[in-house]
Each structure stands twice: as C-alpha cells, then as structure tokens.
C-alpha cells in the first residue's frame, strides 16, 4: 500500500485513506492531500451531476508512470491516487491524492505535480449535466496544461 493507484466507481473515505497512508510509519513528518469534488458551478454552468469515463488499461498505466516520475523527483515515503469513474452527483468526491514525506516541501510539490500531470495526462473525460438538462463534455483547460508545463525539465 505504500504507493498505490486505484480507479474505481465506489466512493472513498478520506479518513481511511489518511490512516492507510501513515500506517506504521513514524518517519512521515509531512502529509499533503488533495481531494477534488464535483462542484455546483463549472465554467458558469449549473452542474447537477457528472459522468466520468476513462480508458481502462491505459489509465492505470499512465497513473503508474506519473507515480514513478513523482518518486524520482521527490523524497516520498508513500503516495495514494484514487480516481472515481461512472456517475457522480454534485458534491461527490472525484479524486484523492495523498503523499507523505519527511519534508513538507517535498510533500506539497509532489501532490501538486501528481494533480497537474493526472489532469493533463490520465485518460479521463467528464460529461456534465446541468439543471436545464443540458449534457456537455467538459473542455480541457489551457491553464491545466500551463500548470503541468511548469514541471518540465530539460530532459523532456
């Protein structure tokens, strides 16, 4: 469980994810989590629910590659990525990223990196339903790509 990836339809429990992340570990002085949720207003659309599709097989491989890259860049003790797929309602949890490290700057940077790369590399797609019954595929945000590029090194 030290470094784990899960793509699942069922919800996750943040308290349990945290407990698993630090279980038996007294070296992890710093823990950073990110939770992404379905929010009621996205790009000025009144969202009521969301459908999350992915590319089974590729998703897990890409998440594993992102995790491996994160481990080479920062000094981490553990990291979990959980991403839900399927039908989600307003306020539902979508994604959990949690990392532990002896150093807070490593934990913060690794969590941001994981989210930036997950957002722009992992093959998930969101389709939102609004109050008016409109169903729309969410557009990728240029800002997410810009954020991901911050982490590029000369090797890439």
């Amino acid at each position, binding site marked *: 469980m030290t470094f784990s990836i899960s793509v699942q339809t069922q919800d996750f429990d943040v308290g349990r994810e945290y407990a698993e992340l630090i279980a038996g570990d007294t070296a992890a002085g710093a823990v950073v989590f990110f939770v992404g949720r379905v929010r009621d207003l996205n790009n000025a659309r009144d969202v009521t629910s969301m459908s*999350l599709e992915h590319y089974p097989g590729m998703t897990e491989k890409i998440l594993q590659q992102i995790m491996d890259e994160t481990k080479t860049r920062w000094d981490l003790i553990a990291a979990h990525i959980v991403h839900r797929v399927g039908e989600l309602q307003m306020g539902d949890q979508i994604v959990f990223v949690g990392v532990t490290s002896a150093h807070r700057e490593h934990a913060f940077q690794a969590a941001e990196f994981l989210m930036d790369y997950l957002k722009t590399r992992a093959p*998930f797609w969101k389709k939102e339903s609004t109050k008016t019954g409109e169903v729309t595929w969410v557009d990728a945000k240029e800002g997410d790509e810009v954020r991901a590029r911050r982490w590029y090194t000369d090797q890439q």
Partner: protein
Amino acid sequence: MIQVLFLAQLREQLGVAELQVGADSVVSIATLKDYLVVNHPHWEQFLSNSKLLVAVNHQYVKTDVAIASGDEVAFFPPVTGG
C-alpha cells in the same frame, strides 16, 4: 488486425466505439487516419482535429509511428479528469 478505439466525445461524434482494420491496409497512424476517412468521409472533420490525442498500446504517440497487427490504437479528445 489492428484494434481501433474512439473514446469520449469522439466516440459520440463518430457513433462508433471501436472497429478492426486489416493490418495490410495501414502501416502507420497517418495511413490509418487516411483509411478511416476514405471509408467514412464525414469523419474527416473530427479526425483532423489537431487537438486529438493518439495512443498506441496505451502509450501516447506525439508523431506518426508504425503500427502492426495486434496493436491497439486509440483516438480521443484532450483529457479532463481530476
């Protein structure tokens, strides 16, 4: 045979989730696209989208690459997870 997948919005635009193409008909992503457009002229507007992403056997390919029988090629729009 080459397994071809269309995902998310592209699947809905084409009305097809997957199809098989004989490996003798195509040798690269470019020739595969040409083949698909010849057989489905109205797909051209969607497959020519420069933002479309392509993966071969679950790995992104940024430029044209050779493909062969047994390969899985996926076309899909920019990703929006997280």
